[in-house]
């Protein structure tokens, strides 16, 4: 998770060092949301074809010429224009909360965006993005060939939208200071409690013996500590 200073997190994060000596963690996006975003964009493009095709039909053969030019632009530059002018988001990427960035975390520019989109031709080979998918599965940061050449990554925009689990447990201060890792483990546990059987939750909670010693209900105690760690007492 972001904010965790320990070595390689078990998550698909890309770490960048900034000049201020801070590590940024980019949550890179995998093939599935990207494929869905691509589908949305494909749909939008089809609708655009239909609209422009319909309008140009009234303009006769001249209109058809303009339609072909439009087709060319849409085929090659639809993603580029959106990525550069709309903060790295085509409408499809926006719908799935994705964003293209340079791999150093800076907003994508014309060169990189053009490259990654021109090279789609190769990623598409031999059929339906097979090469691109292979490259994504082999790469630690889910980059397809176009991304590798352009130096770009696709990231999730709002990875931290996790809702704190709604519990009535009162916030509880842990009996002693905890490292960030430990805090994280407790918060993650609290988030998962609703998805666990009560027996399994109790079993897991008992593993944190030093923390929950003397507590009547270890699970509730940990949930309370999770709330306290989240800073929910300050109303956020």
């Amino acid at each position: 998770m972001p904010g965790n200073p320990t070595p390689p997190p078990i998550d698909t994060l890309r770490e960048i060092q900034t000049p201020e000596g801070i590590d940024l963690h980019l949550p890179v996006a995998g093939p599935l949301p990207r494929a869905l975003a691509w589908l949305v964009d494909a749909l939008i493009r089809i609708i655009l074809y239909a609209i422009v095709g319909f309008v140009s039909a009234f303009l006769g053969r001249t209109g058809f010429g303009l339609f072909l030019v439009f087709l060319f632009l849409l085929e090659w530059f639809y993603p580029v224009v959106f990525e550069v002018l709309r903060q790295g988001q085509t409408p499809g990427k926006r719908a799935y909360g994705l964003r293209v960035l340079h791999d150093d975390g800076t907003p994508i520019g014309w060169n990189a965006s053009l490259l990654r989109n021109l090279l789609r031709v190769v990623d598409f080979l031999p059929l339906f993005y097979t090469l691109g998918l292979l490259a994504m599965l082999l790469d630690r940061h889910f980059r397809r060939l176009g991304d590798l050449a352009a130096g770009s990554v696709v990231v999730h925009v709002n990875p931290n939208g996790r809702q704190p689990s709604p519990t009535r447990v009162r916030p509880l201060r842990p009996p002693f200071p905890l490292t960030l890792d430990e805090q994280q483990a407790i918060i993650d546990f609290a988030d998962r409690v609703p998805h666990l059987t009560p027996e399994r939750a109790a079993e897991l909670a008992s593993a944190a013996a030093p923390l929950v010693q003397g507590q009547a209900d270890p699970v509730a105690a940990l949930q309370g500590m999770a709330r306290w760690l989240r800073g929910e007492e300050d109303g956020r």
Partner: protein
Amino acid sequence: MKQEPFVAAHEPLWQRLEAWLDETDPARRDPEVTERFPALYRQLCQHLALARERLYSHHLVERLDRLVLRAHPELYRRQRRPWQALARYVLADFPRQVRRRWKLVLLSAMLFYGPLLGMLGAIQIDPDMVYTVFDGEQVRMFERMYDPAARQPGREPARQADSDLLMFGYYVRNNTGIGLRTFASGLLFGIGTLLVLIFNGLYIGAAAGHLTQMGYGETFWTFVAGHSGLELNAIVLSGAAGLQLGLAVLAPGRRTRLRALRDEALDALQLVYGAAGMFLLAALVEAFWSPRPLPSEFKIAVGIALFALVIAYFLLAGRGRRAA
């Protein structure tokens, strides 16, 4: 310092930065923050580092982390090129880019013009050679296109009445698309580019050779003369860019393959911009000039002049101290 006083001390700054970041219109942002943004941003980074070091609650660290992540791109972004860059590119950078990799351009030209001229010549000796690359139906199609009896040479009978603008759209989409694909397919170790260059050379050579051999030469050559200098050389340049991509993967030198690919792809793109511009110009010429019924000698002369102009541009433009 405990977490509560830390938050209390710096909360106003964080909220101010958050409000500033929420506002996407630069004109409506708090001017004071805009002016001092680098300093404020570094302060924020310090807060994040402190919060991590002092093991403040996860919630706080995450919030600061998110804030830094949002602020980072405001300070660090790559320079955008102004409009002047376009003029500079056309007048100096593009021809220089071409000269700088003259070996690749020469290789690409040989891979393209070699098969083209070879096929053209071979058909003069053995007319049946045309059927090695085209089938009978295709041959009849371009025979009809350049039939001296046709009103609009260069267009299929069904397209005789089409407007120039329609043909322009057709040429832009097809030819520029081929150029961009020629470049992109170079990523496959250069093989894609190699095939596109050789086969396009063969096709064009076969068509030209066949039409010349059967006596349609005048309609054909007067039609293609005008745009050939731009279009054929744009194919060559797209090819050179594609070969550069392939070479980066095949022979990265002392760099890693990924590093080489990144460097060379960005570099090759500078050639692709120019080639795409040439395809666009070629489409304009092909749609609006090439079909004009003007004296053959005149059209051929203009064609040769344009071809020479393109070559001269690449050899001469952008030299000298002023351009540097």
